[in-house]
């Protein structure tokens, strides 16, 4: 892993306009950005649409390839590509989750998942693409099984959070689901029995050195033994699990708090994303993007484990709702904002 020092720059590559309301979320298509396949990502907005953006291989610039409209009747809050890149799930305040398929260049809505009582806030595919999870203001987390013919069957409705659930995210390698909530906690869910017996197997709350206000997002490192969470309490928290116990697969290894990054943000942190090279990006309500890396220099006990690599002030004119590192060969970061734009950044070593 490359040792990043302060000689790094986050260079603004392009600003993408098009949405007519705040952009809540974006997701890179994981099957793009390599082997001559142009980068693609999806964005979703308060304007009730989803936009698909593709990079032109000759000019290097992104353009809007498709607008997915006339489906959701309220804000589209979150979107997620299946691991194969063939399907896109979009979660909306209209209480539905739509599944879209790219059929010869056109995106068609092939399925609509109903069930949540009110706003759906997040959607996530598991590593193999066999399961989908959604969550929302009704405090529940739903797990759906993907079946042939783009059919989706709800296999579990998980209650446990005492408030609005903001985000769900599957573990990168195991079928364990994580959720974070307005109730300030993170919950871990796993299938305990043989068939669809999903239970909450751990809660990371205030008593476990957890957050003291709404937890907005979480992100795992590539190996899945660490995760960062971000919150309205203005901190980023790092959690870890015992990777050997985790890999043995027989028992669940509990997560524990490792460190808290405090004093860097002065407004709500809405998004955190861990790159495959180990750089953690955060997007916050103070319009800044911050990058953090492991602190290799301080080997003294009690020294900070992570340090600020760089702070991009006024990255946008308004709150940043989502930051996502690209897959594939390049070090690109995309950010989505209340100002209605998306920006693509390139991380350059100086």
């Amino acid at each position, binding site marked *: 892993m490359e040792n990043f020092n302060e000689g790094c720059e986050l260079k603004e590559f392009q600003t993408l306009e098009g949405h007519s309301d705040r952009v809540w979320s974006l997701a890179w298509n994981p099957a793009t950005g390599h082997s001559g396949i142009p980068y693609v990502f999806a964005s979703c907005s308060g304007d009730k649409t989803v936009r698909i953006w593709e990079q032109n291989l000759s000019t290097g610039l992104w353009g809007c390839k498709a607008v997915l409209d006339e489906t959701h009747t309220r804000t589209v809050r979150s979107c997620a590509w299946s691991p194969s890149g063939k399907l896109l799930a979009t979660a909306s305040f209209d209480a539905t989750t739509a599944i879209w398929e790219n059929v010869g260049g056109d995106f068609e809505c092939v399925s609509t998942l109903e069930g949540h009582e009110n706003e759906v806030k997040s959607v996530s595919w598991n590593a193999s693409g066999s399961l989908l999870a959604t969550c929302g203001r009704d405090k529940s987390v739903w797990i759906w099984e993907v079946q042939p013919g783009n059919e989706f069957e709800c296999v579990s409705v998980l209650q446990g959070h005492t408030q609005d659930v*903001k985000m769900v995210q599957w573990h990168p390698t195991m079928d364990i689901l994580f959720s974070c909530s307005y109730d300030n906690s993170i919950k871990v869910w796993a299938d305990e029995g043989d068939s669809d017996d999903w239970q909450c197997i751990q809660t990371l709350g205030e008593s476990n050195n957890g957050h003291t*206000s709404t937890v907005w997002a979480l992100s795992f490192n590539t190996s899945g033994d660490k995760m960062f969470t971000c919150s309205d309490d203005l901190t980023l928290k790092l959690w870890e699990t015992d990777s050997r116990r985790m890999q043995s697969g027989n028992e669940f290894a509990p997560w524990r708090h490792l460190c808290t990054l405090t004093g860097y943000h002065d407004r709500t942190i809405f998004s955190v994303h861990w790159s495959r090279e180990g750089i953690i990006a955060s997007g916050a309500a103070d319009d800044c993007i911050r990058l953090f890396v492991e602190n290799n220099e301080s080997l003294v006990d009690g020294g900070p484990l992570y340090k600020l690599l760089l702070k991009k002030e006024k990255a946008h004119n308004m709150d940043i709702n989502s930051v996502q590192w690209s897959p594939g060969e390049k070090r690109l970061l995309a950010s989505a904002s209340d100002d209605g734009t998306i920006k693509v950044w390139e991380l350059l070593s100086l």
Partner: protein
Amino acid sequence: MTLGLINANPVVHAKKERVARTEDLHADDAVDPLEIYDILDPEHPYSLEQLSVLSEESITVDDKMGRILITFTPTIQHCSMATVIGLCLRVKLKHFFPPHYKVDIKVSPGSHADEESVNKQLNDKERVAAALENPNLRQLVDECLYSNEL
């Protein structure tokens, strides 16, 4: 909507004589925060100012940072209209301040039994956005803002 009024007998104050602002604070973008005083209470045909929910001290503007803090005082400790009042304030301010201004809205300390809970809801922008997409709530907010009963 509840059938009975939350606060059936509010104390009503006379409207303050407004001193016209002579200094031009920030040119055309200037918002006159005094406009928020005219927002109607959700339950009675009086403005928030008349019910002493808002006063001049309620608003703090930091033009340099582009931040605004509004504090308001619900008429009673258990006012369940507090979140509606907060929403009204947000909608009203949205059109008058430049869009990049960050607005925090809180109940004045000690003025509400569920102060923390109300403040948390009012400052969770996802909850606010979803609430304003709810037609019933939106209608209530619009009535408070645009009714000409006064």
